[in-house]
């Protein structure tokens, strides 16, 4: 077990290293984007450009620049942005993380609840009309482009129906939980719902499939034979066992979302989270912020992957050999 965990950990580090190199190469070797001139400002004369180039280490060979950047990022932790000069990158990420966490955790609670209810109900009512209807709703949820849905939601709640039914909807943006919990929740309400729509559909379908499969298993037949009610069989036995693969799926999705996959939602709702930070840095080719946010996001995905793998290995010894 320990060896397995150690191997996973080593693999994680290797993967993160590879990602940092790939990101660095993608952006630092792109022609046409000389960072020095952009940092120095408009109409900077050649002397100023040379100064800036030297200060940022842009005149050194590629591997040295990579090491310098990693040094500033991980060891000295004083990496500064190329666009917002002087703004340290790590604090930016630290400020943005709670916003993304708020968005993701809230949405996760909602979608898990929704998925559990819909998936279980759908499995319970299989054969009747309710089942395919619920599944259809789920499929539609999966197929809707989330940013498009967000824009339509904004159109209705902020503009078209703002003076009427939705006058209680606060302006777009983020209010910290510590500042005002009620406003925090109100500002995040529609972002939560929009993000949850997508995942609720997926999880409901998976859960339904798992429950149906579980209902054919021997232990369920035993439970029925013992005379337990169908409802008890469903909830106390089938559902419990079906949640395991859901949990692993959830771990992976949650990791990816926290890392910044909720990018489109943040852009649409104006939430200053990691996704928006990354998106802006990509638009501006703010290389230090790009590397830092990509590494941060990758770290969470890889961490989630590793945790899920280790938990599975702890439960199922066969996996450890694979």
């Amino acid at each position, binding site marked *: 077990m320990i060896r397995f965990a150690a191997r996973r950990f080593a693999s994680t580090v290797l993967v993160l290293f590879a*990602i940092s190199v790939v990101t660095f190469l993608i952006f630092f070797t792109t022609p046409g984007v000389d960072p020095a001139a952009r940092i120095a400002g408009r109409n900077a004369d050649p002397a100023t450009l040379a100064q800036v180039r030297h200060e940022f280490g842009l005149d050194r060979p590629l591997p040295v620049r990579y090491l310098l950047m990693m040094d500033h990022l991980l060891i000295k932790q004083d990496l500064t942005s190329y666009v917002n000069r002087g703004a340290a990158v790590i604090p930016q990420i630290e400020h943005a993380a709670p916003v993304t966490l708020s968005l993701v955790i809230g949405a996760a609670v909602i979608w898990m609840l929704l998925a559990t209810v819909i998936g279980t109900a759908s499995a319970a009512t299989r054969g009747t009309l309710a089942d395919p209807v619920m599944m259809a709703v789920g*499929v539609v949820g999966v197929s809707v482009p989330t940013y498009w849905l967000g824009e339509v939601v904004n159109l209705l709640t902020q503009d078209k129906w703002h003076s009427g039914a939705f006058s209680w909807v606060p302006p777009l943006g983020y209010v910290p939980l510590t500042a005002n919990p009620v406003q925090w929740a109100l500002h995040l309400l529609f972002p939560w719902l929009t993000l949850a729509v997508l995942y609720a559909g997926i999880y409901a379908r998976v859960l339904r499939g798992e429950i149906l499969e579980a209902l054919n298993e021997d232990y369920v037949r035993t439970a029925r034979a013992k005379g337990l009610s169908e409802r008890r069989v469903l909830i106390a036995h089938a559902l419990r066992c079906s949640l395991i693969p859901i949990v692993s799926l959830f771990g992976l999705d949650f990791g990816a979302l926290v890392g910044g996959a909720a990018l489109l939602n943040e852009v649409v709702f104006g939430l200053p989270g990691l996704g928006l930070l990354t998106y802006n840095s990509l638009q501006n080719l703010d290389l230090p912020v790009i590397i830092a946010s990509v590494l941060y996001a*990758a770290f969470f995905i890889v961490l989630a992957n590793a945790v899920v793998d280790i938990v599975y290995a702890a439960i199922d010894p066969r996996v450890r050999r694979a």
Partner: protein
Amino acid sequence: MAPSATAPARGPWRTALADLVRDWTAVASFTVFVLVVAVCLLAPVYAHYIAHTDPFQSNISGTTVVNGKTVPLLAPTTTGLGLGVTPIGPTWDVHHYFLGADNQGRDVMARLLYGGRNSLMIGVGSALICCIVAALLGVISGYFGGVVDTVLNWFFDVIWAFPVYLLAISLSVVLLTNGLRLGPLTVGAGSLWLPVLIIAAVYVPYVARPVRGQVLALRGREFIHASIGIGGSDARILRRDVLPNVAPMVLVFLPLMAAINMLTEAALSFLSVGVQPPNASWGTIINDGLGLLYTRPVVAIAPGLMIVITAVMLNLLGDSVRSALDPKARLRGAA
């Protein structure tokens, strides 16, 4: 008298096909999907013969006929401070700007169909490439094991750990300005191959890992041992034993990946790093429509609806294919 006792076995593929044909959801979703594809492929016919417009040429000072009157496509505001121009809204007349005009005075309906062509091509094309490449890599990795497996697995981990959108956006940002040059192969900056290849590449691990898992499970089974025992070559085993057992899984992935890739392409185009003008796709039309969301919402809503419909059909199809190919599903009686 039991018919199954005397009738010859039809084999897993014919059984699956029969199941599929009997499943009305599958038939309905497949039909709608084919309908959408057909209509989009007929985009040039619509544009030329029915609507009489060129959906790729700006027509800002142009006019059209609505209810017998000639109106400008982009009407300036005449009240108040007289600021801004508004494109005409839906006329519900197939010959004259059925869904209205966009900011450049182009026919939205015609662009919707052309955009559909590109979105479908990119979605389906990248799904095909992704599934084929992923299947190959997954099989190789799972079957041969050892160093090959370790390297490929690590490779999948790296790509997959890179947040999907970030990787796609990064590659797009870089490649779109300069195009791609891989030795003798040159892909121009405006080519549609770029989004296809980028999206396919990004999702390879998503398909390859389950395939690899399946191959690993297969490798431990008796029939493979038997083949090795009788002296079958690797190629023979792969061809006759492994691939047929992996194929169903890949087939299930195909429509699902098509839906996912279509959505990803739309997201990338929405962020302006997917399909580039003058090409159109449903994602770029949504992007255009955002600039008209408050005055002419139909320009943003129509492509969004098309994406939803197509993705729903593909998902339902994928579900049905999975049910048809999965023997256990018959036990569950899943819809």
